[in-house]
């Protein structure tokens, strides 16, 4: 068949069939269109402010590699004046993260960006290899996801950065939207579909403005909880990210995490990819649907799920949501799915108080919603909306909590929760002790025995 021509420049041979609109582009036009679209996403959402210091959560995989490359390109091209730095988390997974970190190091050199690596080992005293040796392969993603979120925040804080960007793409968001639908968990849609997710915790102690200018610790030191997250590639197809990397010859690492179980997310992923083959627009349509649905669901984003009832409250502390929601630990890259419900709930709590100040957040969820039993929040909304409460009770058995019964009891807080800091580590938490510390406590309790066992096996 005769070569088709690029519909953009009409001279070069078409090489890319765009999934979103079936346009056929040559590699050069594609690269430029892809970059322009990311730039448009960033400017239309006012994602960054000039001179802002941004940490790019870099896993060495394709998404973060493309994100770093595009941001660097755009920053230079449009003179945004962003101060970009790569931030990687070393989970301590031999045979996986060590190789991917090599890729990050090469990227850093190539892009001439500083790189900072924080490790689980230094932060928590446990590498993931050790965690897995302790608890087995099953459920370890919970640990990884919870630890990663804090690790990125702590890494950002060390660097004095208030904003971490991650490489989540449209396919990831569509997957998460579907997973939330399949679980009947509409409350989470806001977090899944919002371009900005965690709220600057400067708001936490009520002393500061959401812009965080006078955030925790003067003199440039950023409190560990005072970090926001965003995903500039959330409208970019995974296919196009891979093609961008291919045509720009970017050097990325691609091997699944050796501990990744891929259970529920894997199925959602397969579904998305099958849909894409039949009707590629479906991916962005699912994303769009998720955004629209999030608007319709009062308290979408976690809200009262824990606070409004004892049963719901069980969900708050330990959520082995890893296998599905927590793409965090599952080889899908740095910062993905990171915080699980904790972060989402915390964000909701923040929004209760601060929604009016947060442009991007309000866009996700148009009104601040009260956390109480819903009368206020639901008032004036559609009849269908009270559903979340019964729904959240039915979810509980679906996602059984196998461990750490004790902390749950502490969670059945009446009414509106107040957001504070973990009494052990100071991380933003609505509980006295944050999720990571609870997990760590469990690990540390049984450590002596295992340590001996491990030593013996080595010795």
């Amino acid at each position, binding site marked *: *068949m005769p070569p088709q021509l690029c519909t953009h420049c009409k001279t070069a041979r*078409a090489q890319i*069939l765009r999934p979103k609109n079936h346009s056929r582009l040559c590699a050069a036009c594609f690269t430029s269109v892809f970059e322009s679209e990311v730039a448009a996403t960033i400017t239309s959402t006012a994602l960054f402010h000039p001179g802002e210091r941004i940490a790019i959560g870099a*896993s060495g995989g394709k998404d973060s590699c493309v994100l770093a490359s595009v941001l660097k390109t755009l920053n230079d091209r449009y003179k945004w004046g962003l101060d970009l730095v790569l931030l990687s988390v070393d989970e301590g997974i031999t045979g996986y993260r060590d190789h991917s970190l090599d890729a990050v190091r090469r990227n850093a050199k190539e892009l001439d960006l500083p790189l900072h690596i924080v490790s689980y080992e230094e932060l928590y005293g446990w590498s993931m290899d050790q965690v897995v040796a302790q608890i087995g392969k099953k459920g370890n993603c919970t640990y990884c996801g919870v630890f990663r979120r804090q690790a990125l925040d702590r890494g950002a804080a060390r660097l004095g950065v208030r904003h971490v960007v991650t490489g989540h793409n449209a396919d990831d968001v569509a997957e998460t939207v579907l997973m939330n639908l399949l679980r009947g968990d509409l409350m989470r849609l806001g977090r899944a579909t919002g371009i900005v997710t965690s709220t600057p915790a400067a708001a936490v102690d009520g002393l500061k403005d959401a812009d965080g200018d006078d955030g925790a610790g003067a003199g440039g030191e950023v409190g560990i909880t005072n970090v926001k997250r965003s995903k500039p590639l959330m409208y970019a197809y995974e296919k196009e*990210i891979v093609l961008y990397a*291919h045509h720009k010859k970017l050097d990325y690492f691609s*091997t699944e995490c050796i501990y990744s179980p891929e259970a529920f997310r894997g199925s959602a992923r397969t579904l998305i*990819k099958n849909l894409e083959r039949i009707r590629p627009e479906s991916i962005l349509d699912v994303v769009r649907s998720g955004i629209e649905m999030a608007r319709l669901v009062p308290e979408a984003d976690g809200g009262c799920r824990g606070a409004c009832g004892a049963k719901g409250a069980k969900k708050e502390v330990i959520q082995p949501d890893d296998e599905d929601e927590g793409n965090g630990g599952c*080889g899908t890259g740095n910062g993905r799915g990171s915080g699980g419900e904790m972060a989402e709930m915390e964000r909701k709590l923040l929004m209760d108080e601060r929604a009016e100040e947060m442009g991007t957040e309000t866009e996700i969820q148009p009104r601040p919603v009260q956390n109480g039993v819903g009368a206020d929040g639901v008032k004036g909304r559609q009849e269908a909306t009270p559903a979340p409460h019964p729904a959240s009770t039915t979810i509980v058995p679906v996602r059984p909590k196998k461990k750490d019964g004790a902390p749950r009891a502490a969670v059945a807080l009446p009414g509106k929760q107040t957001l504070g800091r973990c009494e052990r580590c100071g991380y933003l938490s609505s509980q006295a002790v944050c999720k990571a510390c609870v997990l760590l406590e469990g690990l540390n309790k049984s450590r002596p025995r295992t340590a001996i066992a491990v030593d013996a096996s080595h010795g």
Partner: protein
Amino acid sequence: MADNIDIKVEFTGGLEMLFSDKRNHKISLPAVDSDGQPANVAFLIKYLCENVMKSQKKDLFVLDGSVRPGILVLINDADWELEGEDQYELQAGDNVVFVSTLHGG
């Protein structure tokens, strides 16, 4: 008549691990398939599964008779959708790239 056509095949995005951890392969493909039809990409995929793949995990590459959804195929650096997908008839010197998008990023 040439009995074989020589092409280059590349596996990336994690697919290497199904093919002896080797990214670039030189393949000498029979010019016609068992039905006497000119070798196309569908035939190449079958050939790769039967002759080149060392891994048992065939379903990570092929599903329901075609490349698994989520794996991109580039023919001479262009989307195979633009080239006729698996019906594209291979020419000597062609470069076919299989890129998985299924791995983490």
